């Protein structure tokens, strides 16, 4: 382990010089995870809002299941999406297995419950506070849901970010449906896993540092946004 300082130095070099191999992996990671977050937010925020304000039989059960699904193991999601997308699977005709598209699908499925469950909670809290006022002003449940989505926007940022953190950091799902193919479906996490097992620590370390820096920077940005917004809008 005495080559550790050497590995760190090398990793810093890779990052500092913008090594093309490394940049490609980072960009693909961002492309996949950001697309997944976008899709999951487009689906998850309205679903969360709908569950928050709607009344229907079995609502509690839905919430419990949704909350439980926040902890879905990425490998299991990967396996299910793999089975669906494999040539003999029901969605095999699309032929997207082992492409970034498959990785987007898997990560979307993985973080959809996270975004839906966290936004459900945020919107429901707001609903409890706003309900009578909105009903008094003449808002139906549907328009109330949209109002709450906008009014809770800063809390929802946190929900979306939690989804991004999960997507960017998971390895199991993208590994199974993407296949970790060099130059095609290799992302930061799968590259780290592979390079570490091969003993190529500099690349793994460099990617690890970038991954952490990315997540920290995004969270800091969101935190500040929320802080400033809170002061501005109350």
């Amino acid at each position: 382990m005495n080559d550790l300082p050497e590995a760190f130095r090398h990793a810093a070099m890779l990052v500092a010089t913008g090594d093309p191999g490394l940049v490609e992996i980072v960009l693909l990671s961002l492309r996949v995870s950001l697309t997944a977050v976008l899709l999951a937010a487009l689906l998850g925020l309205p679903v969360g809002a709908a569950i928050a304000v709607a009344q229907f039989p079995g609502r509690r059960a839905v919430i419990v299941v949704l909350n439980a699904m926040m902890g879905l193991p990425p490998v299991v999601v990967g396996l299910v999406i793999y089975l669906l997308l494999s040539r003999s699977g029901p969605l095999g005709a699309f032929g997207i297995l082992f492409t970034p598209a498959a990785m987007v699908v898997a990560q979307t499925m993985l973080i959809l419950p996270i975004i839906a469950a966290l936004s459900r909670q945020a919107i429901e809290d707001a609903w409890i506070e706003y309900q009578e006022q909105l009903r008094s002003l003449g808002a139906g449940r549907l328009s109330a849901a949209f109002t709450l989505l906008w009014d809770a926007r800063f809390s929802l940022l946190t929900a979306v970010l939690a989804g991004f953190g999960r997507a960017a950091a998971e390895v199991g799902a993208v590994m199974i449906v993407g296949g970790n193919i060099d130059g095609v479906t290799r992302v930061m996490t799968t590259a780290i896993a592979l390079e570490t097992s091969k003993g190529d620590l500099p690349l793994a370390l460099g990617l690890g540092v970038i991954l952490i820096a990315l997540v920290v920077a995004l969270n800091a940005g969101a935190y500040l946004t929320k802080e400033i917004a809170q002061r501005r809008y109350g």
Partner: protein
Amino acid sequence: MRAPASILPLALESISFVAGGRAIVDAISCEIGAGARTIIVGPNGAGKSVLMRLCHGLLQPTTGRIVWRGAGTTPVGRRQAMVFQRPVMLRRSALANVEYALALHDVPYRGRRALAQTALERVGLAHLAGRPGRVMSGGEQQRLAIARAWALRPEVLFLDEPTASLDPTATREIEAAIAAIYATGTKIVMTTHNLGQARRLGDEILFLHQGRLVERAPAERFFTTPATVEAAAFIKGELPWT
């Protein structure tokens, strides 16, 4: 525009509201007619706010019926507005808060801003139009809530302690605003703990005590010669014991 027929009078037919195994509103029957300003008074916890929510349609009575006699089968939700004891503002400017309510009432986009601005002026908030509603002081929010309700041009306006957190100047402004709203033909139903205000603004008094309508009287008579012990004790500023 043809003035629609009045939805009043509002008839409470032996309504009760039970929650937590307790009758918070207990078999109240009365008819609230157009015109006169109705002030509901009573000690804390008497059920004033719950009664208003029932009248406004936010709560359903456990037993009994609430009937808007003039309304027939037409919906009454949009013909009435309410200012809550603790109003809730949206995360947007004061002006946008009023515009939001107008939008819910299908006021065309072009007309909203002017109407909202007028409403803010009427409560002395024109200079704060751009301030986010939720960072305004309690008194400012109360005035904003009145502006928002007023902008909807309701036929009946319920006000739940509209001046509870206001300083004397703001209280006077609000009282003037309420008088102006009343002058435009809006029916006022209001609760207050300020008996001076009840005297100034009230035409008739409903006195609530432990969920029951104990006394109903013209304001003048109520304050000079209350008919019940509870009302007399309440006016004297004593907590009625039972």
